[in-house]
Each structure stands twice: as structure tokens, then as C-alpha cells.
């Protein structure tokens, strides 16, 4: 059905766009070990995105493939949360976002393993292991940087301050999710579990939990509704440029 397809796009677009932001770190990371770790995470998320977008094309009956969704949709048709759109100011902001994102997504995927949709359940089962690694990787860096030098502490705190307004949106229930009981996960229900983990990591890292207010939507619309930040158009211009320059090509 259309609702399931849209739900798959939500989960798929989250992964696709964060993977894009992580791809931009390749050749720019502080150490080779980080190049390979970030590359791995970007690959895992890209893999999740591909399965989810492909699933969307089956679910909505259009049989569109992953590339049709990735390269030929307009900005309004992307359903990712706005958290994944922001360009990273520095490595600290990258790991701050990765910690929040992967903690949240892991909680989602843990619940999705028992989804009534068998494809989603299988994707989730595979993803749980990956996301656990992503979260632990991010948490280790958050702790290292939070409890490292004065400079790294300052940057790590600033990284969380910068992304925190985008966190609330992760737990905002969406009609598409609520229309798919036992298939989709109730986003609001994930909040407590995620909070416990984030608070633990922040405390270990000697960081303060930001109390920034949630970033407002526009006319009650948020990323899940196709309403994005100004950064998003630039992402798509880059992501889609080669594919769109050659509409009849096969790769």
C-alpha cells in the first residue's frame, strides 16, 4: 500500500541523506582509521537505503527501483527527518549527530524486527547489528572528545548544541506511521529509551545535555512531510547531478 511505501521512503531517505553527509567526509577525516570507519557507516546506511527504497517501489505497486527514487524525486518528495540534512561544521558535530541518529534508528530497528511486514522485519534484523556498531563508534568519540582537551570539549558541546533543535522531530508521531499499526514503529514511544542512552553518554563525556528548543516546522510540516531545510536543495543538486545529466543512460 501507499502508506507502507511512504514509510519505507521515510526510513530509506534518512539513511540515504545521512550517508551522503558521511560520504563528504571521505578523504577529509582526521585519521585513516576514521576514514575507514566513516566509510563503513556510510556504506551500511547506503545499503539500508537501497533495500528500503526498493521495498517502497514494490509496496506502492509502481515497481520503481531504488535509483528512480534516489535520483528522480523532487525535494518535496523526500521524507527524511531534517536532522540528516545539515552540513557538519566539524568532526565533533558529525559524531554528535551520528550518536543521536544511530541511537534513535537502532531503537526503531529493534522494534521493527517484529514488524508484520516481513521485508521490513528482515531489513531491521540486519540493520540492528550495523547500527549498534555505528552508535558505539559515535559514543566512543563523543566520550573521547568531550573528556579530551578543553578545545575538544568546547567543540563537542557546540556540536550537540547545534543539532539538538532537530532531535525533537525524531519522536514526532506521523500519520503514516500511526496508519500502519504493527508494521511501523511508534516514534513517540522511542523517546525514553533513546534519552537514557544519550544522557549516559553525555554524562560520561562530561557534557551537558542541551536545552535548546525544537526547531519549528513550517505550517505544521516537518521533514517527514517533505518540508526540508535550505541545505537540502544543495544536497540533491550534487547527489542527482550526474544521473540527471544522462536521463537515458544505464550505469
Amino acid at each position, binding site marked *: 500500500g501507499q502508506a507502507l511505501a511512504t514509510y519505507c521512503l521515510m526510513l530509506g531517505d534518512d539513511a*540515504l541523506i545521512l550517508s*551522503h553527509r558521511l*560520504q*563528504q567526509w*571521505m*578523504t*577529509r*577525516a*582526521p*585519521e*585513516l*582509521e*576514521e*576514514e*575507514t570507519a566513516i*566509510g*563503513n557507516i*556510510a*556504506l551500511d546506511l*547506503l*545499503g539500508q*537505503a*537501497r533495500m528500503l*527504497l526498493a521495498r517502497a517501489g514494490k509496496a506502492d505497486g509502481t515497481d520503481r527501483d*531504488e*535509483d528512480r527514487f*534516489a*535520483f528522480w524525486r523532487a525535494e518535496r518528495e523526500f521524507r527524511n527527518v531534517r536532522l540528516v540534512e545539515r552540513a557538519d561544521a*566539524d*568532526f565533533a558535530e558529525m559524531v554528535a549527530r551520528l550518536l543521536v541518529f544511530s541511537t534513535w534508528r537502532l531503537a526503531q530497528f529493534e522494534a521493527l524486527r517484529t514488524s508484520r511486514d516481513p521485508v521490513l522485519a528482515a531489513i531491521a534484523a540486519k540493520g540492528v547489528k550495523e547500527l549498534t556498531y555505528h552508535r558505539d563508534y559515535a559514543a566512543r568519540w563523543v*566520550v*573521547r*572528545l568531550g*573528556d*579530551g*582537551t578543553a*578545545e*575538544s570539549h568546547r*567543540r563537542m558541546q557546540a556540536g550537540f548544541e547545534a543539532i539538538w533543535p532537530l532531535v525533537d522531530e525524531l519522536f514526532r508521531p506521523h500519520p503514516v506511521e500511526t496508519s500502519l499499526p504493527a508494521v511501523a514503529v511508534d516514534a513517540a514511544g522511542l523517546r525514553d529509551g533513546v534519552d537514557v542512552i544519550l544522557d549516559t553518554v553525555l554524562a560520561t563525556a562530561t557534557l551537558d545535555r542541551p536545552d535548546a528548543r525544537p526547531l519549528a516546522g513550517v505550517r505544521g510540516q516537518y521533514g517527514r512531510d517533505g518540508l526540508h531545510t535550505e541545505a537540502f536543495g544543495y544536497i540533491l543538486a*550534487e*547527489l542527482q*547531478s*550526474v*544521473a540527471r545529466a*544522462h536521463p*537515458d*543512460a*544505464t*550505469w
Partner: protein
Amino acid sequence: MTVISDQTQPDELQSHFDETIARERRIEPRDWMPEAYRKTMIRQIAQHAHSEIIGMQPEGNWITRAPSLRRKAVLLAKVQDEAGHGMYLYSAAETLGADRADLTDRLVHGRQKYSSIFNYPTLSYADVGVIGWLVDGAAICNQVPLCRSSYGPYGRAMVRICKEESFHQRQGYELLMTMMRGTDSQRDMVQQAVDRFWWPALMMFGPPDDESPNTEQSMAWGVKRHTNDELRQRFVDMSVPQAEKLGVTFPDPDLRWNAERGHYDFGTPDWDEFWAVVKGNGPCNAQRVAHRKSAHDEGAWVREAALAHAAKSAGRR
């Protein structure tokens, strides 16, 4: 590994080393080795490591713009593999007493070389395929013999690297095959990429034998197994049929089969260009080193923080 007691005399050490080489056995980190051998090996391994790291850039340039998600995953995995190769190679250099931070420092200050091929720009997605096919292909020709390098850790690293490189080469060739079956503009892209990379790929084997002063010593030490010209000929012989199958031509009017020699004849690379690029004047030398330096400099605070945190954690234990 051969254990040598502390009392062994220099002459005995040298003759033991010579014998190990002569028997095509491997020199291991704790073995005695002549200083010149150690220095040569460090330089060779470091340059190879640097090449992997700098080589991430021309391909990395296309990750975010890859035209299909499958190609994106393939390219991302490849660039990530190159970071991995860099890591084992730096580790191999460290077994000889080199320091990775010091080697990185030499790279970002332009005091140590890397493969000149990466000083050419990647200008279309076809370049990703051509780098896989020709550049990785040439690298494999160079590197397969190095799996038998007399220096153990390097030889073993090369086994793993060559395996991955072959995989990359096949993926590159497969991308080109797909593009050649696509639109006219895709075919043009492939031919243009081949035109740009063919001669630089031939130059990857180094200068002609009569201008390659270190070859003799390197071959004697078993750290080099074939001359530059031998490897170049092997690469040309291998590549021509692949090009025919693909449907592209190489930009060399002198390229033709020589039945007498049983090899392809081919033209002379522009060695002036080669030396210019080696000396830092290729189209991307400054850009590549500046990019690496900027990543390194911008990461300094992260590395410092990691050290500071490790020290704190150790203190708490």
C-alpha cells in the same frame, strides 16, 4: 624468523642477509638488515602507502555524485579499501622503525612522493571506471611481483592488496562495459577518459630501464622483480585485447601487434611530462597535497583530544 644472537659479527650478519635474499626467503622485522636496505624499503613502502591515501582523492571526488546507488556503494567501498591499504602499508613501514606521523608529515609537506598518476584530474564518471581498469591494472602489474618482496611484512601486505585491487579492476572494467552499452554520450565519456589516462598509466611503470638508476640494486635485493620496461610491455599486451573487447581505442598511432616479437609495439610516452609531474608540476599535484594537508591540519585537534583522553583513562585505571 631467524634469530640472531647479539654477539654475531657484522660480516656474518651481512652474509646471513645475503643468503636469505639469495634463497628467496624473507627478511623479517627483527632480522639484521643493511641500513641501505632498510631505508630503501621504508621509502618504497611509504611511497606506496602515500599513493593509496592520495589515490582516494581522484575517485573520492565522485562518490557523492555517483549516478546509481549500486555504483555509489561500489565506489565508496573501493575508496574505503584504499584507506585500509594505506593503514597496512604504514604498519609495514613501522616494522622497519618508521613512524606513521613522521611519514604523513613528509607527505603533506611534499617531501615524499606518491604515484604520479593521481596528479591527473577525474573529469567524468567514466574516469572512475578507467582508473579501475587501467590504473589499478597497471598497479597490479607492478605489485604482483611485490607479493614476493624479500621484506616479509610488505610481501604479505601486497598479497592482500593485490587481491582487492584485482577485484577493483574487474569492477572498473565492468562499469566501462556497461557505459559502452549505454548512450553515445556515455561512450564519448569512456573514450575521453581512456584518452586522458592511457599515457599516464604507461608512465606508472617508471622511466625506461636505461634511465632507472635504482633498478639494479632493487632487483639484487629482491625488492623489485622485473624491470620497468618489462612490466610496461606486459601491461600493454594485456590491455590491448581488453580495449578491443570494450570498443575503445588507445591514443597511440604506433600501437600495433608485432608478430616477430610476440608483443605489441607502442609509442614512447612523453617523458618530459612524466618528469614534470614527478617534480610537482602535474595538473593536480598542488591540489592533492593541499587537500591532504588541510584534512590533516583540521584533524589535529581530534588527534590531540584522543591522546589526552587516552592519557586520562590510563591515569584512572
